[in-house]
């Protein structure tokens, strides 16, 4: 290629169309446009066509993956302002129990229970965690880790809201199609909104708190109030995932506070690539179907699952999304000099 007498040189496609700032593009051709849009819309398209192809069983897995995706997004949002949570199960469980209780005891329809559980759950979770907001790093993580355990024990021991049996016969979400597309839509709306928030100045401040909270304090910004706001948003989203799941199962029990719901979003985000939100969704889209596919191994399922997870994290420590993005940005084209 160098034989061309130097009249051509290689150029990275993204360097060619990026104009000085990250968010401004100079698009010169249809190919530039497709370079930008394809990675954004192709996965969306696949996600929305997939339910039409797969069977009943994998359709359910898809809903499951979407709910975990939402939970993982909530985790990633908290992490992006420096709050490392080990207790997504707290959000999930509180959302599920609130929606279940509203539905079972008050006979509210699902279009009332889900929003009420999301907002009410967010308020409750924020009130619970706001006092420990000043704790950093591992201390915050520890508190979030024990809170869901506390709740599940409390419910079992005091036998309230169904005790250890939980409450059953909740209103189902709707038809199979409605369930799948509602979950997918919620996931992508959530993804889009989170990415949007982080691209705004508001998100800039949140990520600055993660990087150096003292510098943010010296800029006259109340970092604790900002963190509480972020916690409210993230826990609301987590509670929404729980509410969705309890209507999907038509059941809610102490298992809603299970450790799975805390660890799975974390594993999914680590696998997919933290800090980008897309990574969280991608990770869930890999992990949840994987754990279903491994059911054939019976008792060894979890062992295999762990091995695969470990292998992935060792091979791709930065996460699937960051790896793919890096490779994609490296696409080069020949340009005339």
């Amino acid at each position: 290629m160098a034989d061309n007498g130097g009249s051509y040189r290689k150029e990275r496609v993204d360097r060619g169309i990026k104009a000085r700032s990250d968010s401004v593009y100079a698009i010169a051709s249809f190919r530039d446009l497709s370079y930008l849009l394809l990675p954004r819309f192709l996965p969306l398209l696949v996600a929305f066509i997939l339910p039409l192809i797969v069977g009943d069983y994998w359709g359910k897995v898809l809903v499951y993956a979407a709910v975990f995706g939402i939970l993982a997004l909530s985790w990633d949002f908290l992490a992006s302002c420096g709050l490392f949570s080990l207790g997504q199960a707290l959000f999930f469980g509180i959302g599920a129990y609130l929606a279940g209780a509203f539905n079972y005891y008050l006979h509210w329809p699902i279009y009332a229970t889900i929003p009420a559980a999301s907002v009410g759950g967010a308020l409750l979770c924020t009130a619970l965690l706001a006092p420990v907001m000043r704790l950093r790093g591992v201390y915050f993580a520890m508190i979030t880790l024990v809170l869901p355990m506390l709740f599940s024990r409390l419910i079992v021991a005091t036998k309230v809201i169904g005790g250890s049996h939980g409450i059953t016969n909740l209103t189902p979400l709707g038809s199979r199609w409605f369930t799948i597309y509602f979950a997918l839509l919620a996931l992508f709306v959530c993804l889009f909104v989170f990415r949007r928030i982080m691209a705004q100045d508001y998100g800039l401040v949140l990520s600055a708190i993660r990087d150096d909270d003292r510098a943010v304090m010296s800029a006259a910004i109340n970092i604790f109030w900002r963190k509480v706001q972020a916690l409210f948003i993230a826990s609301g989203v987590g509670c929404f995932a729980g509410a969705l799941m309890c209507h999907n199962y038509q059941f809610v029990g102490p298992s809603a506070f299970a450790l799975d719901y805390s660890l799975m979003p974390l594993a999914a985000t680590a696998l997919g690539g933290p800090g980008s939100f897309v990574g969280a969704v991608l990770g869930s889209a890999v992990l949840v179907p994987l754990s279903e596919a491994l059911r054939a191994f019976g008792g060894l399922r979890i062992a295999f699952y762990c091995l695969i997870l470990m292998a992935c994290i060792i091979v791709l420590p930065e996460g699937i999304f960051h790896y793919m993005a890096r490779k994609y940005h490296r696409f080069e084209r020949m340009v005339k000099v």
Partner: protein
Amino acid sequence: MDEEIILKVEDLRKHFGGVMATSDVSFRLRRGEFLGLIGPNGSGKTTLVNLITGFIRPDAGRIIYKGKDITGKMPYTIAGMGIARTFQMVRLFYNLAAYKNIIIPLCSPRVQARRGGKYGERDDMAVELLDEFGFERNSYVPYKAAGSLPHGYLKRLDLARAMALRPDLLLLDELFSGMSMSEVAATLPLLEKLSEEGLSIIMVEHRLKELFRVARRVIVLNFGQKIAEGSPEEVMKSEAVASAYLGSESDVPESPSVEGTPAVSGEAEKERPEKRPMLEVSNLTVYFENALALNDVSLGVEENEIVGILGSNSSGKTSLMNTVSGLILDMKKKEDRRGGERISVYGEVVFKGKRITGLGPVERVRRGLALCRERHPVFRDSDVMENLRIAGNRHKSGEVKDSIALVFEIFPHLKYIRKRKGGLLSGGEQQMLVIAMALVTRPELLLLDEPLLGLSPLLQSNVAEAMKDISLRGVTLMVTEQFARPLLPVINRGYVLENGILVMGGSRQELEENPEVRASYLGA
């Protein structure tokens, strides 16, 4: 008349684990006044700034700002009331573009209440503000990631970030440290202008000549206590200040401290039996993406020499040190992984007759080549002794004990503070510790990247003396520095680096006599 007083500090006291960082300091600041705060490293200047801005709570005493007691308030509350600060070690968001760093204060309720500013609008406000501080609007500079900007720009970015709050009181913590003479010259009028516009300023500084151009009143701290206060002239005449701060010979920064040095270095020259090459660098060229950091640099260091590399900010000193120490290979790997800047390195590095161009930094340390990076961090939660042990971890414990004993001979002060946590050390103590840590790795060639940055005049000469001491113990040194004054007396040979090119090299005398060196690095 009380309206005139903007800040009143009363009997402020703070101690850290038995060390009195601030003891019963009181002073008043009038509105629009420019107050200088000087004192040796570790005298509690930064602590005082941290106390006023709420980053540290005092043990006793009161701070009254505009008639309100702000003692013990949160830093963001205090900042919101109009007290802005810069940091000694700039705290910026290095992966964000420079102008994005300014957006954070623009998002604060204080600024919002005054001028609003919607999304997008703030970008313009930030770029406009940066333009005033020398980040030209139409250049690429405001849009570059802060981490890739040279040190002088970072300092001004920190200042711009503080000013974005439109404060009434500004605290500057060693703003000029690490700035080149031309950068300081560009920043001084800005400060003068701000002061004339009615901003009250407290400035912690070691560069007295520059400070005295703007400060009308000076407070001198030593061991946390106020030892003098008054106009610059009065303070400089004071006995206590001279002995605590400027060194007993009271060499005011204007006079170069050459005395006593030729004898020792002459001795060293005599002692050197034969000139064996320690390091040979040939045709070193380093690109960061398309920017040339080093351009065809060739130089040699002989055994047991002290070689100085003079150069202003962004002249390529740090790139040279990173390339010689192999750190750049690590940086290159990391940048490649995240698809960032493409770093290309060409040329040869030969150490003790062996080619080491492709070796990583760890292997180079193993062969006896150690680097103290500019502003190298210490382990904050480990004490001085532990820090030294960590540095010597690959040697046998007996050897480490010997090395540490040797290091304590060179820096007796370190022995005295050996149980103190790294995070509680003052800037000067950290610098000594970092050099000591490099020495514990038992190097044959020690690279020091701006070891005198941010040190008081007294400490500067102490560290320079220590360099001579180290050299006498058989270690070869290569030292970079922006200012020739403290360094020139101790080096055998020197080079001048400008824009990545070695423009001249020669013996100490040759450099001292060169008119251009005198003009740009001695400030003569």
